[in-house]
């Protein structure tokens, strides 16, 4: 094995393999579709009917030509809320994931690279947060500190990093002993340079695989928070829509459009990212790779 073989990131095959894998390809296609609907949708379908219904006849109406996905308990257009709500769900998911990945990958990198007492201390802390039940902790933090989308993102981000830290650390632990790193170190490269130029690129695919899984978890966590009434009251997300639908008795009145529309949005968004994550996991795991 030559020194360059250590560089996983330089292997162009990861992305091609992801596209070749049936799961990976479905995930990528679904992701593009969701991003299109959420980011471009509100521009293509600029519905005027943001106003509340004027009469009781406009409340919880089934899908029609005027309201493609029916109306809410206040007579609002479900399709419009759906298009705008996706942005909120995605915003919180991405914001929280960035925080979690920076924290998790950073701690994992430092912990694995320096090993020794820094590693021992950091991993004790990581393990402590790893065992705390995540969603209950997120609920407690949201109940104590507020429910605007920024605070929600912070709360989810600050509780979703331990798993990433663990995974990155164990990979870095093995990388630091490899020929490439030893050679660069003997040439006098600084610790910072070794981490940034040689270790980080090698764990990048792993970080990315983890990122998509953290992202789907964050979107689910935001949905659960909003459903439990801890969502931002002004920024209506898909979870908030389901909260409103549940409280308005949409199930007993048979208003399936009000439940299925935001629900399907969450499921497709989360599924897209988890398909990519699991596919990447397969592609990056050489043992299982050889058996395919």
């Amino acid at each position: 094995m030559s020194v360059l073989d250590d560089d996983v990131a330089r292997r162009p095959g990861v992305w091609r393999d992801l596209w070749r894998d049936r799961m990976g390809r479905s995930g990528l296609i679904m992701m593009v579709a969701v991003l299109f609907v959420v980011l471009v949708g509100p521009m293509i379908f600029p519905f005027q009917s943001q106003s509340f219904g004027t009469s009781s006849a406009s409340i919880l109406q089934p899908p029609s030509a005027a309201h493609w996905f029916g109306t809410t308990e206040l007579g609002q257009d479900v399709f419009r809320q759906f298009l705008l709500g996706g942005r909120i769900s995605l915003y919180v998911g991405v914001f929280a994931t960035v925080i979690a990945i920076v924290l998790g990958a950073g701690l994992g990198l430092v912990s694995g690279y320096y090993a020794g007492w820094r590693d021992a201390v950091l991993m004790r802390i990581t393990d402590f947060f790893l065992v705390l039940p995540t969603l209950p902790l997120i609920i407690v933090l949201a109940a104590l500190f507020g429910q605007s989308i920024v605070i929600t993102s912070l709360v989810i981000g600050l509780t979703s990093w331990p798993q990433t830290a663990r995974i990155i650390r164990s990979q870095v632990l093995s990388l630091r002993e490899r020929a490439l790193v030893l050679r660069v170190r003997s040439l006098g490269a600084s610790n910072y340079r070794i981490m940034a130029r040689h270790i980080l690129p090698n764990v990048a695919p792993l970080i990315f695989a983890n990122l998509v899984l953290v992202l789907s978890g964050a979107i689910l966590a935001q949905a659960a928070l909003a459903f439990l009434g801890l969502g931002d009251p002004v920024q209506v997300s898909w979870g908030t829509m389901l909260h409103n639908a549940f409280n308005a008795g949409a199930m007993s009145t048979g208003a399936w459009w009000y439940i299925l529309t935001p629900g399907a949005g969450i499921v497709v968004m989360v599924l897209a990212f988890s398909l990519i994550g699991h596919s990447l996991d397969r592609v990056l795991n050489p043992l299982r790779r050889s058996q395919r």
Partner: protein
Amino acid sequence: MRGSYWVRKLASLAATLYATVSFNFLLFHVLPGNPVQLLARSGHYDAAARRQLVALFELNHSLLDQYVIYLNNTLHGNLGFSYVYREPVTTVLGSAIGNTLLLVGTATFITVVVGVWLGVVAASRANSLTDATVSVTSLSLWSMPDFFTGMILIFVCGVWIHVLPISGIESSGLASGGLAHVLDIARHLVLPATTLVLVNAAEFSLITRNSLVDTLVEDYVLTARAKGVSRRAIVWRHALRNALLPIVTATALYVGMVLGGAIQVETVFSWPGMGLLIYNAVEQRDYPVLEASFLIFAIAVIVTNFASDVLYRLLDPRVRRT
């Protein structure tokens, strides 16, 4: 070295529990201010009662003294006083703990059995259509929020084809303790438990599948095959035993997830457990109940983790020798 392992393990358990209780103190008593400020924010506050409250919560002491008082109270099972129910939190928690145990326990048992079985089916036909179907179905169900799955089940079973009760734990007017009563609770249990199984089975089926696929290429599997052992027997008797080890670890992580799921599912089905209690506590800003519920959930997860570590050691002699 055997004794020293247990000493270390128990010491670490004690340290984690201590850290959890301290973290809870930090979370509820230091970061957001003190209980009286929380009470003010929660709306259950009367300005005239402030002095009395400060004395009641012993806030006239230093933070360190408050911490010691808190530790002492927690150790003696005194978890505070609910703002809403105007009863000790322990009284409020009372039956809720049992109801959650019933729901989560039943769901967990079925989840593990169904998940492992599906994982075995997928792995023994690795890369076939069955394998792909199991994996994709598992992932799709995993991608559904617990509360959304519950809402769909309510819609299908409760609104379209009135077959099963969709709310609560029992029908009114049944004498407690009789067979009819037990069956009634079981009927109420079906939908919430099914929701948790549907969402969480994927966790186990995917781990079992991957772990079993890795195990099936080991040398001893090849040896068994060479000896003429049937494929079925190899999978179920030889490989699965070893492949199950990651499942033991996964169960511990799963407990943390299923408790989050229980909060959502109990809310959707009005199941009177800890989850519904947490939902109501959040809605009414009943912080002492929220605090105690979180502490109990955290301790439950830590103890399960400890148990799974111990179980792993008992199951895998290789760990014991090293």
